[in-house]
């Protein structure tokens, strides 16, 4: 919203305060300022001039050669292209040496005729919307007068961030902003000049019916005998400076009052609209707006209808074409109304029509403002046209009044919340400046909230804390240390583990962390052959592009691998993110925190990748969680049917890992091998923790023995591992797999494993007999399981 500082100064004397200071204090006390623009300083040596003669240009069919009197004593010749030039017209004329915005005026030769100055269009000067010709000034304008002496063209325009005014319906007009300035700088707010409507009480009442509770107040008054159709130059200037266009007197007046008070107004042609019925439509209604566009208005909107129940306006948003006013309108029905903010917002969004009026109604306007706005409009109308006649009483259907709000609080409460000791009188002074009525009884304050702050903004004592301290100045509040008891801080295990895993994967396993969206990418999945059916969906997916939420994390990472496949021969990525694969019995999403790793490589074998995953899983299990881990059979469609497994710890299922299903892998990148894993991070915390196990060292000599066992190639190494780990032995025993040997010709369906075992007794050195005895017992145990020494 753009605010004209000159307009503000009409209501509050801000003399002696620099613009920078005004802007700074307002920004710190009230709302965010987006920009400050100084205008009008670039209009130089522009004066009122009278056209003395008009000749056609000898060589052009649209230019004219004029002689004008600019008050300098001798007539000046100027070439002008405007169609509305005529003898006797008074207009703004820029002399040679002067300036119109960034245009410096010099003597020029225009198609063979010298031109010494410029007759100015209103749009060129920025004071009117009109682009059709030069400014047409009133007959009374005095030739030679500088534009700055006629109009306050030099101004400071302050653009306020609309978002920072959402909770302040009272600040959507200049008068409200002026009230803030008055309060901030402790100056007096001047009263508005109004036309008291009580004088029309005896005139006929209008036929206004309100049939919806969402119309809080609807008022109307009619006027006729309107002779003047153009607005005053000042009104035009202000509308244009504040980002609107001047149209005609009546339209301009409604906009002017809106910019001044924040109350949207509407003028119907009283010849078309005789009575008003405000309804809430049950079925869609079609209406053509003032601009000629047709809109279908969804049900449950508020619609203004005429006495024949024909729609004439979308309440609070836009007027209809049929009842609109034009330059020829001479009798008016002036609407000043108040509607439910949410209803206006919903209708406005549904039909995609956001207007200056709807923006204001959305903020919950004060219904009391309806009367003030009408009185102000009538005052301004009468100022512009003395012969206007009011033809009805102020007809007021006021169905919903906000309750009066009184807040009882204490100076102590306000002081404690702010952290600054303020007296009750000081608090009362600040609140009074903002329009609150305050009575003080020692420490106690009884505060009546003014109607313009009582529609939603101020209702509790905490709201008063804000009012008091934003005026006192947040920058005047001393920073105050806090003291709290010395208590240890809890660590949330799920959060800690997440970070530890991330850190380990990046630092130990050289993986790159990515962040992705939570959508289920149907197109990608289909393209590569992943089946993923969402359990929950977005209702509106117009902006996200995908409606389902993912039930697996890995497909998203595969998508990233796909996007990077031509840039990298090796891809090792991971993410810890949420999946949404389950609804609980209350139909609420039971989300999971998943770790997914995707490895893709052009140089590493699938087996190497698979083992790297195993290394990761074992690291997390043994080093970060301290739980045991098993690899069992799994059936998961995205993995290789043979080379994949389920990862479990006891009866806790942690997830799956394996080589990616060859079909999916080939669809993504034929050159690379893929392996991936997906584990439920929080499930790790449910596993049984292993007891800490420390083996004491021995000072006696250790014996290292190698055994070559052969076993059917179909059996897993785990069979050997289980035998050794369960082998009962009185000595400290460590073992490792030294070598795996496969040779079909020699071993015929069997595989040879070289196991190195180290035994150390706690209390002596072993004799060769004892060593022999150990070996025999071990070999026998193996033989019992069909695993023999290689001969």
């Amino acid at each position, binding site marked *: 919203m753009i605010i004209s500082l000159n307009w503000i100064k009409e209501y509050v004397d801000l003399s002696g305060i620099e613009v920078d200071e005004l802007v700074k204090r307002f920004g*710190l*006390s*009230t*709302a*965010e300022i987006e920009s400050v623009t100084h205008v009008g300083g670039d209009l130089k040596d522009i004066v009122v001039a009278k056209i003395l003669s008009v000749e056609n240009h000898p060589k052009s069919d649209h230019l004219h050669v004029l002689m004008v009197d600019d008050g300098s004593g001798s007539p000046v010749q100027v070439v002008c292209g405007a169609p509305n030039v005529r003898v006797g017209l008074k207009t703004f004329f820029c002399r040679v040496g002067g300036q119109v915005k960034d245009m410096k005026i010099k003597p020029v030769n225009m198609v063979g005729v010298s031109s010494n100055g410029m007759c100015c269009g209103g749009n060129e000067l920025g004071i009117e919307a009109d682009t059709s010709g030069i400014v047409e000034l009133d007959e009374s304008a005095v030739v030679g007068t500088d534009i700055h002496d006629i109009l306050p063209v030099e101004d400071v325009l302050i653009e306020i961030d609309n978002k920072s005014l*959402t909770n302040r319906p009272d600040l959507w007009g200049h008068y409200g902003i002026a009230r803030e300035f008055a309060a901030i700088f402790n100056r007096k707010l001047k009263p508005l000049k109004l036309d008291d409507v009580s004088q029309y009480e005896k005139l006929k009442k209008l036929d206004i019916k309100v049939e919806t509770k969402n119309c809080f107040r609807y008022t109307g008054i009619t006027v006729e005998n309107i002779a003047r159709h153009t607005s005053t130059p000042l009104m035009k200037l202000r509308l244009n400076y504040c980002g609107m266009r001047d149209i005609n007197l009546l339209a301009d007046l409604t906009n002017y009052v809106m910019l001044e008070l924040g109350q949207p107004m509407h003028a119907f042609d009283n010849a078309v609209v005789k009575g008003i019925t405000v309804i809430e439509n049950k079925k869609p209604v079609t209406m053509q707006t003032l601009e000629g566009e047709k809109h279908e208005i969804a049900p449950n909107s508020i619609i203004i209808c005429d006495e024949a129940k024909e729609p004439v306006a979308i309440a609070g948003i836009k007027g209809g074409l049929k009842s609109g006013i034009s330059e020829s309108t001479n009798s008016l029905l002036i609407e000043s109304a108040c509607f439910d903010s*949410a209803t206006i917002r*919903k209708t406005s*969004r549904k039909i995609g029509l956001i207007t200056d009026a709807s923006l204001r109604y959305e903020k919950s306007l004060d219904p009391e403002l309806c009367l003030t706005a009408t009185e102000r409009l009538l005052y301004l109308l009468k100022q512009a046209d003395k012969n206007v006649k009011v033809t009805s009483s102020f007809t007021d259907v006021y169905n919903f009044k906000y309750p009066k709000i009184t807040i009882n609080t204490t100076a102590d409460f306000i002081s404690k*919340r*702010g*952290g600054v000791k303020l007296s009750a009188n000081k608090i009362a002074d600040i609140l009074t400046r903002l329009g609150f009525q305050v009575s003080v009884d020692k420490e106690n304050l009884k505060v009546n909230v003014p109607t313009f702050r009582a529609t*939603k903004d101020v209702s509790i004592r*905490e*709201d008063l*804390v*804000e009012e008091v*301290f*934003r005026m006192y100045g*947040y*920058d005047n*509040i*001393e920073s*105050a240390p*806090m003291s*709290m008891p010395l208590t240890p*801080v*809890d*660590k*949330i295990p*799920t959060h800690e583990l997440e*970070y530890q895993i991330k*850190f380990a994967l*990046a*630092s130990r*396993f050289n*993986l*790159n*962390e*990515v*962040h992705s969206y*939570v959508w289920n990418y149907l197109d990608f999945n289909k393209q590569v052959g992943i089946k993923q059916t969402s359990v*929950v*969906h*977005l*209702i*509106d997916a117009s*902006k*996200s592009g995908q409606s389902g*939420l993912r039930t697996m994390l890995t497909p998203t990472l595969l998508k*990233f691998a796909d*996007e*990077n496949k031509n840039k*990298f021969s090796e*891809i*090792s990525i991971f993410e810890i993110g*949420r999946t949404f694969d389950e609804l609980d019995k209350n*139909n*609420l*999403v039971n989300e999971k925190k998943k770790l997914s790793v995707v490895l893709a490589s052009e140089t590493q074998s699938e087996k190497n990748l698979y083992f790297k995953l195993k290394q990761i899983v074992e690291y997390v299990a043994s080093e970060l969680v301290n739980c045991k881990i098993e690899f069992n059979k799994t059936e998961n469609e995205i993995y290789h049917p043979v080379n994949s497994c389920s990862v479990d710890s006891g009866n806790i299922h942690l997830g799956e890992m394996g080589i990616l299903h060859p079909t999916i892998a080939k669809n993504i990148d034929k050159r690379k091998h893929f392996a991936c894993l997906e584990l439920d991070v929080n499930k790790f915390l449910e596993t049984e923790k292993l007891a800490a196990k420390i083996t004491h060292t021995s000072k006696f000599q250790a014996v290292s023995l190698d055994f070559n066992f052969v076993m059917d190639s179909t059996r897993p190494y785990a069979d050997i591992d289980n035998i050794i780990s369960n082998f009962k032995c009185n000595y400290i025993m460590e073992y490792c797999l030294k070598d795996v040997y496969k040779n079909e010709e020699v071993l015929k369906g069997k595989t040879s494993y070289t196991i190195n075992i180290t035994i150390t007794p706690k209390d002596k050195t072993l004799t060769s007999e004892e060593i022999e005895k150990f070996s025999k017992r071990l070999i026998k145990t193996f033989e019992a399981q069909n695993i023999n020494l290689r001969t």
Partner: protein
Amino acid sequence: MQNKINEIKKYILEKIKGIKNLKECQALRVEMFGKSGKFTELFKLIKDVPAEEKGKVGQILNTAKQEIEGLISDNERKMSEEEINKEIYSAEKIDITLPAEKCTGSLHPRTIIQREIEEVFTSMGFVVEDGNEVETEYNNFTAVNVPENHPARDMQDTFWLDNGEVLKTHTSASQNRILKKYTPPIRAIFPGRCFRNEDVDASHENTFFQLEGVIVDKDVSVGNLIYFMKEMLSKIFNKPVEVRLRPGFFPFTEPSFEMDVKCPFCDGKGCPTCKNGGWIELCPCGMIHPQVLRNGGLDPEVYSGCAFGLGLDRMTMLSTNLNDIRELNSGNLKLLKQFKIK
């Protein structure tokens, strides 16, 4: 005996001259003092010496042994020094400028920044809580005092799900759970992924990270909030910062503020980061609304508190010089791989 000793001495001195390496030197030692070494044999002769001379002969032998051993040891020392020098100067000169194997892993820049910020808070006694990404309408809106008709609840702004829940629009959705979980004094932060139903461009994302915090105790004041934010941000930016409060408006706090920090990159002189304004809008905050406390089971007559939110994406972009927020969710490995672990 003396003759035999002299003979050996002479032999040794001759032999030493010809020794070329440590091995020969060690062989000489064995030749003298080994089991059947020349000198060892001399000692064996002692048993034949008459008892009264045994002491004297022993003494002579020992002196001679020391002398000879000294000669051999000196030579040994010399030889080993020569040999080490030979090894040193014949060694391959290793080109240490060749590349070593690099750590190629990386954390997402958000993770790095988030952890850094979390560590500041934990050092100040805050617990770091984990939140959900899908929340109920109650937690996301009602519990934090967002009115029934507030635009934020509209379909246009929020990702509503077909089971009636929402993708959480702000980390404040966790406030209610945390207020209920702890008893005051409460100090907690809760980082998390948030979602808004809006069009994505260089500065707007529909998926972004926030970090929110609450402090609840008796008589927490705006002055306390200013103190705390200043300390916290000074630690994050690693230098003393100036902060200022401006009025803000959020349903969950009253009063509400926008907190600006004097641009730490130019000390407020004006730079592209602060768009020449000298201040960076960083942190919406405020005093927790009494209704939010009440919804969290706390009596606003007894307790008050403050809450604040940090845009983790914004902090990440500030500290990494990224200027397109979409990069953060892009999986662009060319970019992400440039980040490290800290």
